[in-house]
């Protein structure tokens, strides 16, 4: 025994001040179990204590929003009696330690957030960030994470329809694995995670509870890695936090829960994610304004000799908590038996306690048997909603001006544009080929294009001809230079992706991956980024309906670049024909739609582009976000493509927005996919080749006059780029490449980098 043991509350991740708060709430000293409950529920991961005051600045309302942030998933009314639920989350630290299981359980967790709302999960997307693949450990992580998502997502029966893939040294010790899920439900089936009705039962569904993941939220997700090599530096104490996913259990759980909801047996339902049973019981009770008695001995265990603290906080996967009336118990038990899902009554909804001052408060009571000893008794709301809020110090990085001044736009020497372009081309097909992207027969545009587009259909949904489109996007290179503009532009780029499949953006979810919030620079980045997102969402008329904040993405004291990931959900009102995609044809005219020059002081800014960072230039300025200009082009393109989707005639034969790799990469990608070349006019230097500011589209048309008239009427600039045809990509005097070279290089880039070739 060491002479000065660490006080228990600190070992549980609570500060001395937080201990004081707990004493105030209880009016007494907490016992060990109570302290442990606060430790997990007040962790950064569960309570958002560092970010919550900033998140309030995001716009969250619109007429079509049915459920905004705060619930398990955001929900919008997509029309035709169908609601769409969507959520994104991170599973970063678990994936750094055990990439397969970390990513797999990430998929499992996000699915539960969505079917908790009564929605059938219809798709998954996976934005991924790793270090450079020259490092063998990164290759191991990539293969593990991708096979984990593949292994779990395919087996659980939800198609993975897109994502992102970014390689940058800042993620070498701290990879990011974000997972988005969207699902749909008949609007009238919407359910919330609320416990109500005194006397109702809390039923635990799914897996038994083991020691896996104990302290996951407080130990793993709310602290950085000490060393700089992730797993190797991870001490043994963190190892039990590794969980193994069971997609088969989850699949049966989904079917059983949806059947319970269809049967009308459920008053409220809530998934068990971080912080396990204590989280689900305290949140449902807090939302319902009731108390909850939980019997720890009623919880089926997988391991012997587990103590109440372990049982209450375990993060064992594939579990749900349903609140039902006692009369429905036989029906619930029978349905669960059919799906071979274990169901146990573990709690009772009880009256709130009336205090001396007349106020009533719902208590979470942990008992040893329903009539047994009370092991813990705390106000449910204090766990779920009353964690301290921190306005942590923020500081603009001292070196930011110097970094911004080091702008590659004007002085970075030009290499061979041919070689530069080839080096930028990466086809992520090796990743998404491993995902079932077609299940449910909805996938009109799968992974590999600008946004994924699905028919809005599924088992149990009313008939609809609508479609939904989703794109996930991020730009840490910009956000490192200017988190505010970078985040705003990321939202715009995502909206541009949706426009390419004819969809109008309706809602935003986000996953804010940042470093250690105790570093003032990180808090400044987070705050700026949120302001940028608010600016973009206000400017484009988009509500934020959910999100997730992942902090402590640091290793050995160094933080990742700010990485806000946005997921945009859009709707196509009539989807009876596929959008044109990238499929231009010989003889089509190619045009650039949208402003040809960035708004601001530089026509073709290169700060933060893949071209510049690929040459080691990470400084520079970021283009300005200008909502009016961006929205003009995006809305025009969305309308043009929506007409095609609705089955209308159109001269538009192809569309692709300009993003990573710039205009040159957009053209090369269209060449690679069609196998047909293009002859493009001279552009204004490598700036115009590789600049990445959004709101520009490469489009092909069989009737350029008619197209230009429509664009003119919409007030959107159109510039003629050239004509489709031949076997080469030519851009003025700068680029001249054979179609075959582009295709082969792009197709093999990832496998070569992964050393699989």
């Amino acid at each position, binding site marked *: 025994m060491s002479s000065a043991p660490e006080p228990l509350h600190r070992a549980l991740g609570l500060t001395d001040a937080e201990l004081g708060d707990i004493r105030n709430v209880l009016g007494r000293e907490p016992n060990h179990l109570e302290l442990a409950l606060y430790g997990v529920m007040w962790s950064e991961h569960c309570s958002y204590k560092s970010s919550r005051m900033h998140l309030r600045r995001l716009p969250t309302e619109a007429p079509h929003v049915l459920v905004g942030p705060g619930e398990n998933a955001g929900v919008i009314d997509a029309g035709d009696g169908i609601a769409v639920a969507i959520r994104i989350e991170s599973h970063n630290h678990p994936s750094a330690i055990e990439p397969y299981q970390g990513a797999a359980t990430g998929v499992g967790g996000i699915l539960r957030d969505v079917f908790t709302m009564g929605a059938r999960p219809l798709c998954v997307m996976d934005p991924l960030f790793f270090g450079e693949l020259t490092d063998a450990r990164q290759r191991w992580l990539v293969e593990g994470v991708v*096979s984990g998502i*593949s*292994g779990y997502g*395919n*087996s*659980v*029966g939800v198609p993975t329809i897109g994502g992102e893939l970014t390689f940058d040294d800042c993620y070498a010790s701290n990879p990011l694995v974000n997972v988005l899920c969207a699902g749909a439900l008949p609007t009238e089936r919407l359910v919330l995670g609320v416990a109500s009705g005194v006397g109702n039962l809390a039923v635990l569904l799914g897996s038994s509870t083991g020691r896996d993941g104990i302290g996951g939220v407080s130990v793993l997700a709310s602290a950085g890695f000490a060393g700089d090599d992730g797993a190797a530096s991870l001490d043994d104490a963190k190892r039990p936090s590794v969980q193994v996913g*069971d*997609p*088969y*259990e989850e*699949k*049966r759980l989904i079917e059983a829960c949806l059947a319970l909801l269809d049967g009308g047996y459920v008053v409220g339902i809530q998934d068990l994610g971080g912080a396990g049973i204590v989280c689900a019981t305290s949140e449902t009770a807090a939302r319902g304004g009731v108390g909850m008695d939980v019997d720890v001995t009623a919880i089926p265990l997988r391991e012997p000799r587990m103590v109440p603290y372990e049982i209450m906080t375990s993060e064992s996967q594939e579990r749900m908590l349903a609140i039902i009336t006692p009369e429905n118990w036989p029906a619930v038990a029978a349905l669960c038996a*059919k*799906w*071979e899902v274990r169901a146990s009554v573990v709690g009772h909804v009880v009256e709130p306690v009336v205090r001396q001052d007349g106020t009533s408060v719902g208590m979470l009571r942990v008992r040893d048997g329903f009539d047994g000893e009370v092991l813990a008794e705390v106000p449910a709301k204090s766990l779920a909603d009353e964690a301290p809020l921190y306005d942590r110090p923020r500081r603009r990085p001292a070196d930011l001006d110097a970094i911004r001044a080091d702008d590659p736009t004007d002085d970075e020497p030009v290499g061979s544009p041919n070689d530069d372009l080839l080096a930028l081309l990466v086809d992520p097909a090796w990743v*998404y*080929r*491993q*995902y*079932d*992207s*077609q*299940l*449910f*027969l909805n*996938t*009109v545009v799968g992974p590999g294009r600008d946004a994924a587009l699905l*028919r809005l259909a599924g*088992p149990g949904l009313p008939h609809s001809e609508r479609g939904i489109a989703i794109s996930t996007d991020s730009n840490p290179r910009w956000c490192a230079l200017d988190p505010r503009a970078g985040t705003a532009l990321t939202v715009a780029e995502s909206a541009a992706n949706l426009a390419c499949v004819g969809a109008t953006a309706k809602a935003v979810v986000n996953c804010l991956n940042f470093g250690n919030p105790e570093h003032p620079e990180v808090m400044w980045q987070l705050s700026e980024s949120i302001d940028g997102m608010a600016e973009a969402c206000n400017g484009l008329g988009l509500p934020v309906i959910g999100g997730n904040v992942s902090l402590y993405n640091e290793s050995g004291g160094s933080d990742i670049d700010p990485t806000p990931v946005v997921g945009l959900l859009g709707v196509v009102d009539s*989807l*009876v*024909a*596929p959008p044109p995609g990238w499929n231009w044809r010989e003889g089509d005219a190619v045009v650039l739609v949208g402003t040809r020059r960035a708004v601001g002081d530089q026509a073709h800014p290169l700060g933060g582009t893949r071209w510049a960072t690929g040459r080691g230039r990470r400084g520079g300025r970021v283009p300005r976000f200008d909502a009016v200009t961006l929205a003009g082009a995006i809305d025009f393109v969305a309308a043009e493509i929506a007409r095609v989707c609705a089955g209308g005639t159109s001269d538009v034969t192809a569309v692709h927005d300009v993003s990573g790799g710039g205009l040159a990469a957009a053209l090369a990608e269209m060449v690679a996919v069609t196998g047909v070349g293009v002859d493009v006019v001279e552009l204004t230097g490598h700036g115009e080749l590789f600049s990445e500011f959004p709101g520009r589209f490469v489009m092909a048309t069989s009737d350029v006059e008619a197209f230009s008239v429509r664009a003119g009427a919409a007030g959107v600039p159109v510039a003629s780029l050239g004509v489709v045809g031949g076997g080469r990509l030519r851009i003025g005097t700068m680029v001249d490449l054979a179609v075959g070279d582009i295709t082969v290089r792009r197709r093999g880039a990832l496998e070569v980098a992964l050393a699989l070739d």
Partner: protein
Amino acid sequence: MTRIGVVVFPGSNCEYDAASGVTQLGAQAEFVWHSSTDLSGFDGIILPGGFAHGDYLRPGALARFSPVMEAVGRFAADGRPVLGICNGFQVLTEAGLLPGALQKNRGLTFLCQPTTLIVESTNSVLTSAATVGQELVIPINHFSGAYTCDDATLHQLEANGQVVLRYKDNPNGSRDDIAGVANVAGNVVGLMPHPERAMSTLLGSADGRVLLEGFVGAYVAVR
């Protein structure tokens, strides 16, 4: 109306898609839970794709012990149409209703991609409406799709015309590019590609129709 039973094991996930495929062709589809032992009244049975029993142990290894499989065996022995798609194919081989086995793909990764199939024989309930040599673009979606068998079995398959579909560009290391096989009578067929995913150009291909049309129409011939 033709009644097709679509068997649902816990862990199946393509049952809705398979049902949608045959209903689009005018048949009636009904789900059959894996504990059922009665298949009377059905004109054909589909074992759909997915991960029956989680694919734990091996794809199909636990599913073949599901109670319904005895009934499927009798249904097949009566000469009536049985179709296994992807996981359903794996179940049929594990159950011994089709020869061979399906191993992990050559590249050891899951593969979801379009493939071009060549119709090798029209002597089966699946390929009866197609023509020999016809090329069909139909997606695959599997981890364990490499068809494997010993030399003697392969010999027999070839001699009897039991190889019904081959890959044009073998994606997974299947022996002799085999994508689908039938039993000797031609009433039991399994294939790794998903014809039900190729029913409409909105989703990329309608080439699966000719296969499912053959299957839905097959019961007439059998009767």
